[in-house]
């Protein structure tokens, strides 16, 4: 419990950040563009199993999914802290709100993905191929312009011949996998197609943008008016917002990441992406707060807030492990052929060794065991430098996790050097941060109009 007198808020934390934030935004936008261009160049010149453009499709998706996860995690933090009427978070909430609102900016980064999907190249999504790959054949060509009717013809052909294919492929796992891929792409066509992909992502971004921007604006309006009813209003919409968030994040994870292998499915996958998102968001928020504090922009954040953020980060490290273990163990235990390839290409097998075998162990120790032991300590969570190390490590490991989700379908026999992916992740995240800084320009760094500010300023862990 508190043993301290009431703390007050410095005057400068109640002023809009203005030009200072605009300058950061501009610099970050430049870093973002440079990162993505560098990622493209790296992908084009890196050796790999496909063309440079094919590699870039996967690298770009890695960067996009990574930055998006940080924005979405921030959005959920905004929603849930309202849902639970949290008092401790007020001092740091504005920074989180800006990141949540910046999800809207990421919608621009969707365009290259749409180009890939509509190009019919089948990268990174095999279901988007205009020519459905067939085992042992150069492909059933659909020319010109790969029109829809022709694709249906191909699908009909596959459907009619599937038993023949299976019988002829008996004893040949590669052939069986290929024929299964054909079949699955066909039966999932109502969901896995360019139209639904576009519609779904548009709806998701509309939903996230409205939520993120509305919460930021309402909070900023409260700074001006001081009206406590605005808090009630935000709390009132938080449950509905959380439901929308859960539905959209899950569908986005299904079509954006799970469909990289159209034969594979897991009911847990949405929760898995969500758990990683929270780690990415919390680690980013901790680091951004420290940078802002070092720059003298915000001084009201104290070790108590960092301690709570550290506790949440620790909790989600455990939660991620729980989800990842449950998903993996159930797939391993049941050993159903349609589920196993997804884990095998990611090195999660003691029988099939590939380029990701050691990476899978790295994930176990780097994403769970070591951070668990490190962040367990109260001392670490209450020590800025140590917590910064923990947060930076978890951000890095979250990047590794997204890389692990995306890249193996492209190349898994040998480990792909992740330079293009790292550059794309830096680029896309810089775009997100540029958006956050741009939103921050019009608001103060602390939501000083919130009626629970006093709770937060004087918050003490016990």
């Amino acid at each position, binding site marked *: 419990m508190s043993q301290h*007198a009431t703390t007050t808020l410095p005057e400068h934390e109640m002023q809009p950040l203005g030009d200072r934030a605009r300058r950061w935004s501009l610099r970050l936008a430049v870093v973002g563009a440079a990162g993505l261009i560098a990622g493209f160049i790296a992908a084009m010149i890196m050796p790999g199993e496909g063309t440079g453009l094919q590699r870039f499709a996967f690298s770009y998706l890695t960067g996009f999914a990574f930055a998006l996860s940080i924005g979405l995690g921030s959005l959920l933090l905004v929603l849930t802290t309202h849902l639970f009427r949290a008092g401790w978070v007020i001092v740091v909430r504005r920074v989180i709100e800006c990141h949540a609102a910046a999800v809207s900016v990421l919608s621009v980064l969707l365009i290259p993905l749409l180009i890939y999907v509509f190009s019919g190249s089948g990268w990174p999504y095999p279901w988007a191929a205009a020519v459905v790959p067939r085992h042992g054949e150069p492909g059933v060509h659909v020319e010109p312009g790969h029109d829809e009717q022709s694709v249906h013809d191909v699908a009909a052909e596959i459907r009619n011949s599937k038993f023949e294919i299976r019988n002829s492929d008996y004893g040949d796992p590669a052939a069986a996998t290929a024929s299964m891929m054909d079949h699955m792409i066909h039966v999932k066509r109502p969901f896995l197609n360019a139209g639904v992909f576009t519609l779904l992502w548009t709806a998701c971004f509309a939903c996230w943008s409205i939520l993120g921007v509305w919460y930021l604006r309402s909070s900023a309006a409260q700074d001006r008016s001081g009206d406590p009813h605005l808090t009630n209003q935000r709390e009132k919409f938080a449950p509905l917002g959380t439901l929308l968030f859960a539905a959209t994040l899950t569908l986005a994870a299904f079509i954006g990441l799970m469909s990289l292998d159209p034969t594979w499915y897991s009911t847990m996958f949405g929760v898995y992406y969500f758990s990683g998102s929270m780690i990415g968001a919390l680690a980013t928020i901790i680091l951004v707060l420290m940078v802002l504090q070092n720059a003298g922009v915000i001084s009201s954040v104290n070790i108590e807030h960092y301690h709570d953020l550290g506790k949440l980060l620790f909790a989600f490290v455990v939660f991620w492990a729980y989800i990842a273990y449950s998903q993996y163990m159930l797939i391993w235990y049941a050993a159903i052929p349609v589920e196993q390839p997804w884990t095998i290409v990611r090195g999660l097998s003691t029988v099939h060794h590939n380029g990701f075998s050691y990476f899978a162990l790295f994930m176990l120790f780097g994403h769970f065991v070591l951070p668990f032991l490190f962040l367990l300590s109260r001392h670490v969570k209450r020590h800025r430098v140590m917590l910064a190390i923990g947060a930076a490590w978890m951000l890095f490991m979250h990047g590794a996790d997204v890389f692990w989700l995306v890249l193996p379908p492209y190349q898994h026999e040998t480990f792909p050097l992740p330079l293009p992916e790292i550059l794309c992740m830096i680029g896309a995240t810089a775009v997100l941060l540029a958006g956050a800084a741009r939103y921050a320009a019009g608001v103060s760094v602390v939501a000083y109009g919130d009626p629970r500010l*006093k709770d937060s300023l004087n918050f003490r862990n016990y």
Partner: protein
Amino acid sequence: MTTLDLQYDTPANPGNLTDDPRQRAPLVTGDNDFTSVTNKVARLAEKWPDLWWWVAFFIALNLFGLLQVLIGYLVLTGVGVWGNNQPVSWGFPIINFVFWVGIGHAGTLISAILYLFRQNWRTGINRFAEAMTIFAVMCAGMFPGIHVGRPWLAYWLFPIPNQMDAWPQFRSPLLWDVFAVGTYATVSLLFWYVGMVPDLATLRDRATNRLSQIAYGILSLGWCGSSRHWHRFERAYLILAALATPLVLSVHSVVSFDFAVAQLPGWHSTIFPPYFVAGAIYGGFAMVITLAVPARKLFGLEEIITERHIDNACRVMLGTGMIVFYAYSTEFFIAWYSGEHYERFVFLNRATGPYAWAFWTMIFCNLIGPQVLWFRQARHHWLGVMFAAMCVNVGMWFERFVIVITSLHRDFLPSSWAMFHPTWVDLGMLAGSFGLFFTFFLLFCKFLPVIAMAEVKTVMPQAHAHSGEHGEALPGEDAADYRPDPHWVERR
């Protein structure tokens, strides 16, 4: 400068149900102090029980007796007395097991997780929720024990060194259950008991007859309320809370593994672990509400288990219900998305097959009925609250029925399809398990402190006599007296 018109405490919004974000609502209402709280709670254990208690105890004890008779009949006759058949080799016993383990989740969630989340309102309901946990786990543990066929050999489940070097099958999730539920029961019991020690000492000090003095004296472990005792108590409580928190997740996750490790469509679903945990908390909170709403009235504890406690419990129930809704939706979507013939069939069969009545009962009770809690009026009226809670109690039992029966009764081979018909022994044992639960619960209400008196006192304003010197807003305190902006002060 205009003055804000803040109509928070309207007649429609009385007591401590205020939504004014400038305040933290008081958690004990009325003109209460430490003495009155002690009197109100301790009195229940000291006075002769009311008539309603005797009537309820009589019914519960009879049902408990019925359970014991049926267990005797089962042991003497064999598991053929149940409706289990092939292919439905798991019937009522596993349904009841999962149902009761789920009920047992809310207690530890309230005590451990809400404690770590600094949710002070939990102090009003944690004691009897923990008691509920213990008795629910007793009910749960009984069913696998009598399902093994030869219950006198149930101890084989434990890895006891023996001359034949025969060990349990460690790769079986049923064995994991033994460890998970066993650990959970042990830690929950410890948590419940440790938290009760100061209150038992209060009962000891107030006891007027020799027997009570001796009994409460032994149970209170020599507690005298010294600083050293409190220091150790707080440390032990925090450590137990930290230990119990992963257990809340692990127990029902392991229970879900019973199903999910199988290759059976309808059972093998990777979302099962968190889905089962959410479902367990959903069902557990429904039972907490089912017990709390009448208890606060019958025991005269409305000022300690306030309307805000009920409101918060309803919100938790609604939230976990939404997670359950998410899991149902995901399962159906993925059943279609999987492209697997058998997956699709199982889910279609659930919704349109011969057990569609059970499926739609589950949907109504778990997903539709409790939605009344979105409305403030329903959350603030005992009828709305009890309707939602009873819906969930029924719905969560049917959820397990749907998972177990509909996945099994039409398996991969149509020639072996069969229906499951519960026998009178199945139904009697289900009723009897409620008898066991309520018998122990009523005895707890009579002999032990139903409210954590010591903890409730810590969230009363009297415990923070110097709160004006502190920064944070405490329950009942104005949180908005800090305003650095002069305009704001003027506006207020």
